[in-house]
């Protein structure tokens, strides 16, 4: 049995169990921490840095989704500093790739766009990288547009951990990281793909979308995913 411990979140005492992450404890206690790469039912990777929190006695900001709680820990989830850093994280995501909301299939149904609005990001202060990236339209039903990918790896995790196919992975390092299909083949040639579409439905942006949807039309059907993952024990 995991040991019961107690931590403070924004000054309030909250009951927790050893092995839980700050995010899990905060969510259970009704505390909101913004997330983008986190996906219910899959492992956490701390990729997006939106769930960063302040922990007393620790000089740097820590991602709530991957940091385990410790007895007596005191966590701050909301502060001016955190908001600033979360905005920066969003701005970096926008500047890294070619996110053009106005002509995106996921416009108005995009988690990145919604999060930017929620955090009050009205402009990007960093120069855009404008990388020249391709669009994989080879699959008969789905499209992968690297221009809109934020490397959250939700697709990688849902495909590996829920579907059990492990079609997706990440190649390269740092800013050159790219989502790849099987051993970096066009999607249509990925022999491991079961065409289930889970990756498409959990993708927070228009990077993975169903084919034939025009601008604004791609509404992700992630409620099926919630049902699926709810049946998996051990994960929330």
């Amino acid at each position, binding site marked *: 049995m995991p040991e019961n411990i107690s931590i403070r979140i924004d000054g309030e005492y909250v009951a927790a169990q050893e092995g839980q992450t700050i995010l899990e404890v905060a969510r259970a206690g009704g505390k909101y921490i913004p997330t983008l790469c986190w996906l219910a039912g899959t492992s956490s990777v701390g990729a997006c840095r939106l769930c960063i929190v302040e922990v007393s006695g620790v000089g740097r900001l820590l991602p709530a989704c991957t940091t385990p709680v410790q007895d007596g820990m005191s966590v701050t989830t909301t502060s001016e500093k955190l908001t600033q850093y979360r905005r920066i994280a969003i701005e970096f995501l926008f500047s890294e790739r070619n996110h053009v909301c106005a*002509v995106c299939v996921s416009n108005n149904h995009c988690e990145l766009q919604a999060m930017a609005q929620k955090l009050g990001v009205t402009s990007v202060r960093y120069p855009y990288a404008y990388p020249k990236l391709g669009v994989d339209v080879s699959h008969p039903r789905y499209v992968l547009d690297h221009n809109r990918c934020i490397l959250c790896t939700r697709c990688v995790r849902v495909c590996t951990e829920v579907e059990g196919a492990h079609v997706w992975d990440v190649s390269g390092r740092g800013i050159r990281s790219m989502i790849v299909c099987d051993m970096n083949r066009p999607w249509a040639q990925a022999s491991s793909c079961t065409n289930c579409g889970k990756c498409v439905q959990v993708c927070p942006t228009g990077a993975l979308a169903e084919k034939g949807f025009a601008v604004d*039309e791609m509404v992700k059907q992630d409620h099926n995913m919630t049902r699926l993952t709810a049946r998996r024990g051990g994960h929330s």
Partner: protein
Amino acid sequence: MRKLVIDPVTRIEGHAKIDIYLDDAGHVTDTHFHVTQMRGFEKFTEGRPFYEMPAITARICGICPVSHLLASAKACDAIMAVAPPPAGVKLRELIHCAQFVQSHALSFFHLSAPDLLLGFDSDPAHRNIFGLIEQNPDMARAGVALRKFGQEIIQGLAQERVHPSWIVPGGVNAPLDSGVRDRILAGLPAARALAERTLAYFKTVLDQFEEEIANFGTAPTMYAGLVDPSGGLQWYDGLLKFRDAAGATVATDIPARDYTQYIGEAAMRDSYLKAPYYKPIGYPDGVYRVGPLARLNVADMFGTPEADRELAEFRQRYGPMVHSAFHFHYARLIELLHGLEKIEVLLNDPEILNKHVRSRASVNSLEGVGVIEAPRGVLIHHYKVDEEGAIKWVNLIVATGHNNLAINASVKQVAQHFIDGEHFKEGMLNRVSAVVRAYDPCLSCSTHANGMPALQLVLRGPDGRVISTEG
């Protein structure tokens, strides 16, 4: 040699510059109309899924995004090899008419009315929409109201006024609500009255512009436009037809996909705007014009009673083939009326409320061409895709492009007639700008290109010295 520079040319859509060369006696020897922007839509859309093209190419223009959306959606229909359901076609036609109303209202009232109603020689500081509001508030209000009416129809149909994502490959993405239909119908009589009143007024002032009418781009050219099989004017879906300057039909019943047999494009050394020409004659003699005046010259009738009555009067005044670019204004006002009549016809068709408004398919053809009449003339979107639907190649020919050679010739004619380098007055240069305005060019569209300031006029003397710049 001296040189006059109009830079930028104002009250047009997009950015251009005009150079006017003078000899020692102050007479105009040559002119150059430069379009100074480059945008690159044909290149950077390569690789995109074809069904994203309507939304992307709509961004070419904020005045006529609906035209690009429709031409693009028609090219996509051709790639999918589907016909949109009848209600989808009618709704596309309806939004297209609304676009004509708002765009023509903008061109006439906001951009050209200051010249026509305040005078070509009036104080340039007041020769704009604000001066118009001061001097002729009723006319300014009519312009604002008509543009608003057109924009509100677009908003009612598509939920967005600019760049609506409602127009999609295969049709439109939502049916028309009967409440919206009734609201538009309720607003129609007032809009009709404004259009009719403006046209009546315009006819009364025409006589003041005899010199402009006689010298604004009067060189006879060929004309191109879309017509239906009976020769009636078509804005949304017709077959391309060319008439020569004398009015003889030289090519007709041209389906969209065959446009390349008739239209060639020449690149120009000093402009980002290419110069399309009529291929059987070749460059540079194959000059043809498109747009409101061209449509009136190419089509036999409008097919709506009031517009046809006005067309008959127009032809009675000026004959069956009218060449003066000044009459683009007249033609535009008649078309404005036709647009409002056509909106009424479409809304009273019970089919317009049908819920089946979209056909779906994936790639069935590797090439698609969409041709429509934009407010400024024939608009062509031509795409090639691979089997998976990724764009491989794009060609866009935009209305103002077709008129490029004719605008150049018109600028020269107006400059030669009106400009006297020895007794120089600002109003002379304004007439040069005004003939460009008569074509209502959309230069940002025609180059699908990246931004710079608006149209500039440069007047240079024989030694190359700049005498004057406007803009």
